[in-house]
C-alpha cells in the first residue's frame, strides 16, 4: 500500500513538473510567435512603402520626362509600327 502511494506520489510530482515545463515552453513559443507577427507587420509596412515608392517612381509624368529629356526618345510615328489583330472577330485582342 505504501509502495503504491509512493509510486503515485512520484507520478504526481513528475506530472506537476511536466505541466510547469509545458507551460514555460508554451510561453516561450508564444513569444516567438508574437515576435514573428511583429516582423510580419513590419515587413508589410515596408512592402507598402516600397510599393508606394515604386508607383511614385513609375508615374507617367516622370517616365515621360526622363524618356524625352534625358534619353532623347520620341514617340514613333504611326507608320513605324504595325498592329495585328490576333482575333479578327473582335479587335480587343489586338497587340502590336
Amino acid at each position: 500500500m505504501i509502495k503504491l502511494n509512493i509510486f503515485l506520489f512520484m507520478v504526481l510530482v513528475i506530472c506537476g513538473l511536466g505541466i510547469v515545463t509545458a507551460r514555460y515552453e508554451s510561453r516561450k513559443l508564444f513569444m516567438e510567435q508574437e515576435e514573428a507577427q511583429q516582423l510580419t507587420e513590419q515587413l508589410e509596412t515596408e512592402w507598402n512603402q516600397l510599393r508606394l515608392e515604386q508607383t511614385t517612381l513609375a508615374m507617367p509624368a516622370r517616365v515621360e520626362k526622363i524618356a524625352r529629356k534625358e534619353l532623347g526618345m520620341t514617340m514613333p510615328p504611326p507608320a513605324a509600327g504595325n498592329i495585328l489583330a490576333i482575333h479578327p472577330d473582335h479587335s480587343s485582342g489586338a497587340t502590336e
Partner: protein
Amino acid sequence: MKILFNPSRKSAAVDLPEWRSRLIQGFLLISLIILVARAVYLQALNKDFLQQQGQSRHLRVIEQNSQRGSIKDRNGEILAISAPVKSVWVDPKRVSATSEQIGQLADLLDMNKATVQERLSSDKRFVYLKRQLPPERANKIAELNIKGLYLKHEFYRYYPSRELAAHILGFTDVDGRGQEGVELAWQDVLTGEDGKRRVIKDRIGRVVEDVGQIRSPKSGQDVVLSIDSKIQYLAYRELARAVKEQHAKAGSIVALDVKTGEVLAMANYPAFNPNQRASMNNEVIRNRVLVDTFEPGSTLKPFAIAVALETGRVKANTLMETSGGMMRIGRAVIRDVRDKGNLTVSQVIQTSSNVGAAKIALLLPPKTFWEMLNRSGFGTETGIGFPGEASGQLRAYNKWRPIEQATMSYGHGISVSLMQLVRAYTLFATDGELKPITLLKRDTPAVGQKVISRETAQSVRKMLELAVQPEGTGSGARINGYRVAGKTGTAHKRLEKRKGYASDRYISSFVGFAPASDPRVIMAIMIDEPSDGRYYGGTVAAPVFSRVMEGTLRILNVPFDDSLGNLVTSPVPARLEDKG
C-alpha cells in the same frame, strides 16, 4: 491544557477560575467566525470584482488598427494607399523631461522649442504634439525615452498620382474617413474594422499569453477602378495644356470604353494635390465632369436628328430649307453662323446648322422628343454612384413652347453634365444602346438599354463621321490612321444673375468616338470660357480630342481602320523602319 490542570503536579497548580478558559474559547470561536465570514465575503460575494482587479494588473486589451484598403487602377497601379505613421502625444501631468531632451524632441518634431514646452505644460491629460510622423522619425523620438510621451499608430493616406486623378479619388480627413470622390463613395468597402484582443503581459511589458480575441481586425478591401493610369495621365496633360493655352477658366475631359461602359479617364483642370490639404478650395476640388452642368450646345443636335430619323419624319438625305441662315419663331430669331444654303439632314450635322436642327425638332411632337432625351439619360443621374452628382435639367414637355423645343435641339434650354453627354453618345457608338457606366473595373461587356434602332444609330454615326471631315466643323479631331466620328459644340454661357446669354463667354465642347468602323473609346471634352480669341468647339476642344484619342488607341492597341496617309499630322520624320 489538561496537563496544566494535572492534580498530581500540585506545585504548578493554580486555582484559575473557569471563566477564563471559556473566555479564551469564546474569543477563538468568534475570531474563527469572523475569518470565515470574511473569506465568504471575499470568495463568494466579491469574487468578480477582485478577480477583475487582479487581472487588470497583468491583463491588457490591445487595439489592433486595421488598414484602409488601397485604390488601384485597372492595371493594378496604386492610386491611393495608406502608409503607417505615428502620432506623438503626451500626458502633460506625467511628463518629466530635461531641457536638453525637449530640445532634441523639438528638433525631431520640426517644431519650435517654446511651442513644445508650452504644450508639455498644458493642464489637459492628452495633447497631440504632432500627428502623422514618418515611422523612422517617430522611432528616434521613442529612443529619447521621455516619460509621459506616447506614440499612436495611425495611417496616412498617400496619393502617388497627385493631381492626375485627384477628382476621381477625392481624399480623406486626418482620421481616415473619406471626404470626396471614390474615397467617400466606397467608404464602406475601403474602411476596415479595428480589432481588439486581450493578452497577458509580463513585468517588462512583453505579451506572454493570448487570452482571447475580442474582435479580430478586418483590413479594408481594395477598390479597383476602371481608370487606366496612362490614359488618365494623357488626358490630364492635354487638358491642362489646352486650358492654359486658351486662357480658359476650366476644362473637363472624360473617356469611356464603349463596350463595357467603364470610365477609362476623367480629369478636370484646375486640379489640386490631394497630398496637400492647403491646395484645396471649393473651386478646384469639384469634379466638374459629374458635379457641374452646362448647356451643351450643338453636341445635342444628333439626338433631335436621331429621333426624327427613328420616327421616319426625315431621312439622311432629306433637304431642309435652311437657306438664309436664320428663322423666326414668334419674336425669337434662330441664326446660323453664316448662310449655308439648303442643307440635307446629314449636312445639318456636318456643318452644325442651328436652323436645320430647329426645323427638324419642330417636326416632332414634344413628347417624342422629350422621351428621346429622357431615355438618352438627360435629366437623370448616371448611376455611377459618385457623391454630389448632378442630374441636369430636362424640363417637362408639356411646358415647352415651340421656341424652347427648337433651341433644345441645338442644346440650349437644357443642362447636362459632361458625363451624361458622353454616356448618351454611346447610343451612336454602339448600335443604339445606352451603356450603363461604371468607375469600377468590369471585365465583361455591359448590356445597355436599347434606345434607338441599329439603322438609326448607324445613320447618325455616318453623319458624325462627316462632321470631322475637312468640310465639317470638327476637322481638328481627325487622327492619323483611324476613322473618327464626333460633334462639336459651342454654346454661349448663361448670364449668372439675369436671363439670357453672355455674348462673349462660351463653353466649347467636343464629343466623339473612334475607330468609327468599330468604336472602342468615346470621349468628351469641355472647355469653359476659352478667351484666347478662339472659342469654337472645333478649334478649342477637337484638337484635344485628337491628341488624347490617338494616344488612347495606341495604349489600347486598337488596329488602324484607315490608311495612315489620311491626314498629315506628324512633322517628325519616321525614325524607326517598319519591320512588320
